[in-house]
């Protein structure tokens, strides 16, 4: 509460030290020390290990306290390949999440109509009782499969156990169908395996990095940004394809200011140039790929001259960049991107990226994609889960045949009456995902919520979604809790521990505790048979050549690889888990399901007169809408701005810093205005805003009514028929300079 005061006192302490003797520090001995051999630890208290929960990169770090025993700072763990000892601004600012006085403080039960935000305080026991009864009612009346868990972050793992015990497999993350899903499916169809997280991109050693709409450096995918800087340092060629002059574009040898929505045409032209000139990796393709002749025939008409008329990229530049890639091959990386749900043909675009990588021989090659490995984590013993009577797939009504994970958007659609699938969802448990701002088409999300029998929201902050809940459960922040072990794949298998650095503030509780207590209440204790979380973690760690005691000291543990070399080699020959056992340039799987077996360019609608394509993205100091209220991070960026090109500003007589509302093609108007930023960094046919602002929840004292929300403007959602991803870049906006209420009525 009194953090600022406390910090000042600490600051004066440090200031005092500065006045003291410099004797010990004088001379070259001090300089010798500057080699980084010193140890972090101005605090006398030993730091506690954690891994970050501010974003999905989950960098491991150390939490330091000051002399008063209060959380002071978080420093990256040097042993962790996700961060190499350097957290990003969000991880560094993670302390703000802990100190934010707007946090959820106590369980709440709704007393007024849904959405009116009238709640009463409840005890945890009351809240659990309420949820357990309602879940039991839904299970009996509609079946357990009609309850879905929508989750983002580590807390979801044990809630998933609870869902399985209950009899539902509908556990969805917006990280799939609103983000990287099409890419996973596209690469799976081509190479037989997806990319997961962190993507196994060997940016560190690449000679040519190609970014297509991926704004690395504005998204702080930590180790990737670090490796991009390394690549710049050793002179790698950067090629950035982006209609906006992104930070990465500013560091690139080639910036291709492509007309939005035409990326597939460029990718096809690159394939054309590389095949026509026989610049592809012949040995790699002959040995390991299937369907090359069909691909060659397919791309023959897609010359750079053909692509010029579509993409507006000079044919010479297309040829020159293709040659740069070929010269670097196989140490070239066409980055697969992460948020790739753009136009509804995203799986096909991901396929095009995968195929181009295959032609250049970069899969499984140094400077391309490495072969990742993760550590198997043993299960804590529990009885088998009950069989799922109806699966999430049954709710899809035969759509999206290649979806390999539940789709958050299909759960929302499936909660509305008239769902074409086998059943309608009746209850949601939402964990760490502010669906109001995460999902496109806010109005539809709200309509779906009104149909539910139960909405439970577990969060640390009073996000907008909590206002619509029947029960709100306040989770403590990651700095106050244990969690499941982190075991993402990497160059070497590596695990990380999160343990509490402080007691939970207020009446908030750890996610694992919430899942277990709810399980007890519902009679699923046998699935949570561990005595306490320490015993649960220690059981696993003891079977992994470690222990909780050891992990508390080291935070991060690496293991030897057991799957062979990091790249393909004579000892580790390429293997592909596709039906043909080869890289599938031509996809029989897609053909048989009635989709294009090879990517094809299809034109997408263009903005009508007076409208501009809405592009959105990230900023380094924020993670979507979840950090906009963080005191440390909102100090860096408190609101987003609407980027417009100077000619657009001139046409509309917009002034720098002027507040305007946005209105989209369907008449939706932003609830809050945002300021105009006039910049040459954007095309005249688009506007750009950073995602995650424009909060309407007034309990978020710093973020309330700051900036605009892109989610409210994304009412045209182009669903990828292959896997159900939500294409969100086909929305067009115009400016409302005054009286937005009039516009809403119209």
């Amino acid at each position, binding site marked *: 509460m009194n953090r600022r005061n406390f910090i000042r006192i600490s600051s004066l302490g440090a200031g005092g030290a500065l006045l003291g003797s410099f004797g010990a520090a004088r001379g070259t001995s001090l300089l010798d020390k500057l080699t980084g051999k010193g140890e972090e630890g101005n605090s006398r208290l030993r730091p506690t290990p954690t891994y970050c929960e501010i974003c999905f990169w989950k960098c491991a770090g150390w939490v330091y306290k000051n002399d008063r025993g209060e959380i002071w700072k978080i420093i990256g763990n040097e042993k962790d390949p996700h961060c190499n000892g*350097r957290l990003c*601004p969000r991880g560094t600012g993670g*302390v703000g999440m802990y100190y934010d006085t707007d946090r959820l403080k106590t369980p709440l039960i709704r007393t007024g109509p849904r959405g009116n935000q009238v709640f009463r305080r409840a005890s945890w026991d009351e809240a659990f009782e309420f949820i357990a009864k309602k879940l039991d009612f839904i299970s009996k009346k509609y079946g357990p499969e009609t309850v879905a868990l929508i989750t983002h972050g580590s807390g979801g793992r044990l809630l998933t156990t609870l869902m399985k015990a209950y009899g539902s497999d509908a556990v969805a993350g917006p990280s799939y169908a609103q983000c990287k899903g099409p890419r996973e499916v596209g690469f799976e169809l081509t190479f037989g395996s997806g990319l997961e997280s962190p993507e196994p991109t060997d940016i560190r050693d690449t000679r040519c990095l190609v970014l297509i709409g991926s704004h690395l450096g504005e998204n702080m995918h930590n180790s990737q940004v670090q490796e991009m800087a390394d690549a710049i340092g050793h002179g790698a060629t950067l090629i950035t394809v982006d209609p906006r002059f992104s930070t990465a574009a*500013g560091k690139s040898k080639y910036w291709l*200011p492509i007309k939005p929505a035409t990326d597939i045409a460029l990718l096809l032209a690159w394939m054309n140039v590389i095949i026509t000139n026989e610049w592809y990796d012949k040995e790699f393709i002959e040995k390991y790929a299937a369907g090359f002749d069909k691909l060659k025939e397919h791309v023959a008409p897609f010359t750079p001259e053909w692509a010029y008329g579509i993409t507006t990229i000079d044919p010479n530049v297309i040829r020159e960049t293709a040659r740069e890639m070929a010269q670097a091959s196989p140490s070239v990386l066409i980055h697969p991107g992460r948020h790739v749900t753009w136009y509804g043909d995203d799986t096909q675009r991901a396929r095009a990226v995968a195929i181009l990588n295959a032609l250049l021989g970069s899969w499984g090659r140094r400077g391309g994609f490495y072969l990742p490995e993760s550590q198997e984590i043993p299960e804590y013993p529990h009885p088998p889960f009950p069989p799922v009577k109806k699966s999430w797939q049954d709710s899809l009504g035969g759509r999206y045949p290649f979806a390999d994970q539940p789709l958050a958007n299909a759960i929302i659609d499936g909660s509305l009456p008239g769902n074409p699938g086998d059943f309608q969802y009746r209850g949601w448990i939402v964990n760490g995902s502010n669906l109001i701002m995460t999902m496109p088409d806010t109005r539809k999300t709200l309509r779906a919520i009104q149909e539910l029998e139960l909405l439970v929201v577990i969060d640390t902050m009073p996000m907008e979604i909590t206002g619509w809940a029947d029960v709100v459960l306040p989770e403590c922040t990651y700095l106050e809790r244990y969690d499941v072990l982190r075991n993402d794949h990497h160059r070497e298998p590596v695990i990380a521990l999160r343990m509490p650095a402080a007691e939970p503030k207020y009446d908030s509780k750890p996610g694992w505790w919430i899942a277990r207590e709810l399980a007890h209440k519902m009679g699923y204790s046998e699935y949570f048979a561990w005595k306490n979380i320490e015993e649960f973690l220690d059981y696993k760690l003891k079977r992994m050549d470690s222990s909780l005691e050891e992990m508390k000291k080291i935070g991060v543990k690496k293991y030897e690889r057991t799957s062979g070399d990091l790249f393909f080699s004579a000892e580790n020959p390429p293997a592909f888990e596709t039906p043909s056992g080869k890289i599938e340039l031509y996809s029989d799987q897609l053909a048989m399901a009635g989709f294009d077996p090879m990517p094809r360019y299809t034109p997408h609608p263009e903005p009508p007169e007076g409208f501009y394509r809405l592009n959105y993205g990230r900023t380094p100091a924020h993670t979507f809408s979840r950090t906009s209220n963080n005191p440390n991070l909102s100090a*860096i960026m408190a609101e987003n701005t609407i980027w417009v090109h100077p000619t657009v500003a001139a046409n509309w007589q917009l002034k720098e810093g002027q507040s305007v509302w946005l209105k989209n093609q369907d008449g939706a108007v932003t609830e809050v205005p945002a300021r105009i930023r006039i910049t040459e*960094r*954007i095309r005249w046919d688009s506007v750009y805003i950073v995602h995650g602002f424009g909060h309407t929840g007034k309990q978020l004292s710093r973020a309330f009514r700051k900036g605009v929300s892109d989610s409210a403007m994304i009412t045209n959602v182009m669903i990828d028929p292959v896997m159900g991803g939500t294409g969100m870049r086909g929305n067009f906006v115009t400016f409302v300079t005054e009286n937005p209420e009039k516009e809403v009525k119209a």
Partner: protein
Amino acid sequence: MRFAMAVDTRKCVGCSDCVVACQTENDVPIGYCRDWIVEVNDGTYPQLEMEIRSERCNHCTNSPCVRCCPTGASHYSDGGIVLVTPHKCIGCGACIASCPYDARYPHPKGYVDKCTFCLHRVKEGLPPACVAVCPTKCLTFGDTDDPRSEISLLLKKRKFKRLIPEAGTNPNLYFLI
């Protein structure tokens, strides 16, 4: 000994991690900062150039702030680091007015505050917090009087510029271009 910092503008992505790390390390009150990011754009679409710089006090060898301080609160410390002694500072603001880099701010406690190159860390053998945290490793801190130091070698190898040289302050922040 002459402490200095090199900022590699080719690597810096302007993420502001240096700003956040400085705030937590040095208890800078929220809403103020000792270091900051500057983005400079040049040209018209699509012929554009961008430079991103992490900026802070230049710890000038010829510091106008030290010269104009009426109480001696602003002074040169170890290795030429320019510091403010809070209890000697009367908050008159002459140093703020004299600094061509706008590197100082009035701390709500009544004294003027600025970057210290994290001297408290340097004394422990640690690099400044901003240098330690930078994900792109674009910041290099060290002694330019030592010809074998990393920063000296970097300045020999790379082209660099200093800001507002016409002010005659002889700044110790180098921007690699």
